[in-house]
Each structure stands twice: as C-alpha cells, then as structure tokens.
C-alpha cells in the first residue's frame, strides 16, 4: 500500500498531499505522522494542500485530527497553500478547521511554527492602543 512521504525540515515535519486520499491512506498518514513527531521530537507539522482541488469533511476531519494529536505531542500544525475555491467551499460547508493554523505557503508556514512571524505573534498579543 502506498503512503505519503514525510520530510523533515529543521524541527518540523513537512507533508505534501497531492493525491485524492482514500480512507486507508488517510489513516496511514495520521499513524506515520504521530510516530515521526515523537521520533524526531518535532515542534511542528506543515501540511501542504496546494495540490488539493477538493477538501471535503473527510479530509477536514483528518486535518483537525492531525492538529489535535500533534498538539498533545507539543507540536503545532500549520496547513498551507489552500486554494481560494477550496476555502470558499469549506466556509460554506461550515468547516472552520478550529485549532488548525494556516498560512499562504510553506515558507510562511515554517515561520509560524514556534510563533516566530510577526502576524503569528500578534495574534497572541493583547491589542495595545
């Protein structure tokens, strides 16, 4: 059975989803990621979905699950590269992907892990006037 490759970049793990995922593949990915987060003591997981034309509730749940499990293992999850039409559809579906950080691309996403970017930081700051 094929599986999705997981790359290590610094203290983060990068996953690029390029195929239409069926159930077993999704389960396999979640298992592999969980294992590797622990194995490499990763601080973050970057999931690149720029190749996905469709994100339905199944994939949405998978992403949310990955984020929840990672958080328990002390790692951030950032989903990057969502296409505009996918974002519009997800919003209409009512899936806001709570607990999942997002960024425009992998570069920005990496900056978010560990809260290093300005935008990421400001989100946590109380607003000062």
């Amino acid at each position, binding site marked *: 059975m094929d599986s999705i490759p997981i790359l290590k970049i610094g203290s983060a793990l990068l996953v690029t989803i390029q195929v239409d995922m069926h159930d077993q593949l999704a389960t396999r990915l979640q298992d592999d990621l969980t294992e590797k987060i622990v194995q490499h003591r990763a601080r973050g997981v970057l999931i690149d979905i720029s190749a996905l034309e469709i994100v339905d509730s199944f994939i949405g749940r998978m992403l949310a699950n990955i984020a929840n499990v990672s958080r328990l293992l002390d790692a951030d999850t950032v989903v*990057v590269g*969502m296409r*505009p039409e*996918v*974002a*519009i559809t*997800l*919003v*209409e579906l009512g899936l*806001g*992907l709570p607990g999942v950080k*997002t*960024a*425009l691309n992998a570069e*920005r*996403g990496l900056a978010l892990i560990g809260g290093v970017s*300005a*935008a990421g930081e*400001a*989100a946590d700051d109380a*607003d000062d006037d």
Partner: protein
Amino acid sequence: MLCAGVMPLVVGGGILAVSDKKNLVSLFAEGESDILANWVSTLNLGEIRMTRQEAESQGRAVLDALAKAVAHGNSSDMRGGEFADVRDVLQAFSRSRALQGFSPTETATFILSLKRSLFEQVRKTTRPEDAFDLLSIVSELIDRLGMFTIETYQKTREELIARQGKEIEELSTPVVKLWEGIVALPLIGTLDSGRTQVVMQNLLETIVQTGAEIAILDITGVPMVDTLTAQHLLKTVSAARLMGADCIISGIRPQIAQTIVQLGVDLNVVSKATLADALALALRRTGRVVTKVKAPSSGASQEQPAETRG
C-alpha cells in the same frame, strides 16, 4: 375532433389537413416575391426604424425559411425540426434588435405586418370556399412567429441585464493594496449572499497575488447590518483566515455596534472605528513603525517632536 381544415389554437402549432397544407405551400411557392414586395411596401419604415434595404433582405430571409418549413413538413408547429431555419432567422433578427436597444414593438411589428401581405395573397389566389381556412392558418402562424420573436427579444434583454449586473458587482468590490502585505476591502452597499461570493473570490485571489497577511474589511459604506450580513462578514473572515490572512474590521458605526451586540452575533474579529486606525494596527502587527522625517534643511527646524508609533 377537428372540423375539416379548422385548427384549434395550439401554442406551438399543429398538424395540417392535407388540403390546407397544399394551399399553404402553393401560397408561398407561387407568390414569394409578390408577398415580399407587398410586405415591405406596407411597412411604416419610420415607425419600426428600418431602412428599405434591411426590410427587404430580412424579409426575404424570413420568407425563404418559411416557404421551406411549410413545404417540408405537414405541421405548423414552430417547435418542429422543419422550422429550425425560421427560428434561426427570427432569433438572429430579434437578438440584434434587442442588443441595439430597439423596442419590443418595433421588433415584433416587422414580423406581424407580414400578415397583411399574406392575407392579400390569399385573397388573390385562393378559391373563396378555401380562403377562410387558409386565412386562419396563416393568421395563427404569423402570430406564433410574432410571439417567438418577442420571447427571444425578452431573453436577450434578460441576458444583457444579467451580464451588466455581474459587471457592476465585480466593479463595486475592489480590493486595494494598502501596503506590503496589507490589503483593504471597502464594502459599499448591502452584503447579500450573491455579493458575498464575489467579495470572497476577489479578496482571496488578491491575497494569493499579493501575499497579504492582513485584510481590512471596511464597512463604513454598509448602511445596515442584520444577522445575515453579519454571517456573510464572518464567512469572509473565515475564508481569509483559511488562506493565512488575518482580518480587521473597520468603520463600525455606533448603531451597527449596538445592533451586532443585540443580535448576539460573536464577531470574533478585531475591529477598529476607522480605516486609518485599522491601517495603523496592521502596520504595527507586521512589524512596522511610522516616523516623521526631518525636512532637508533650509533652516526649517522641526516644528514637532518626531512621532513614532509602535
């Protein structure tokens, strides 16, 4: 059951009795040029705003198609295959008139005035005992042509209006790049679900193109916010967030603020009173500081202390 030769009034048309078909076919076959000449001469060209040449060439196209349709089928059903050419000619004529802004009357009158000329032809060439039946058939046929023309005209106008509506929608939701990484979307007018789709698309595409991290949604120009509008705003904010951009809402007037609270809507988004304040916040958040620069000296000294924000 039909009486010999008399057709009940059917919207699209019906099957012709054999003798009627024969009469109809010869009416067109033998008299086409007379019919055309008569038709054009009875037109009030000024009233329908056509030139003699246009009337002649358009009229000839209609008559040719009609003659063919009548000869090849045995019905006067406008929706049938034999009438395909007739429909094409009428559609082209009607569309062109609709797009040029002629009125429905000006367009249909041209077709309907064919009746007079056909009646004249029937009178000249048909035996009295067959004339009434043939006149009925001809009259109904031309009526149907007229109705078809009007319908096509209507559809064309509706398409035109829909297209213009879309253009207006797109023009009225521009996304403005305020600074590196900061865009603003001044919303004007009501935010219904149709416009929200356009707004979201424009905004998200701009985020992709400019790599914006912060989007300021200015609702100064939105007169009223109800539950639906608030939901649409929230949708837009959520969509932008999924693309990695944070939103700031600006331009919330006191009444709107009260309405939102009363509605119990949780606008989980930072909001500022003015676009200027929102821009200042956005600049801070993206790590920028605004300072006043001393004027190159011609003796002019700084009148105020340097202003820094951040």
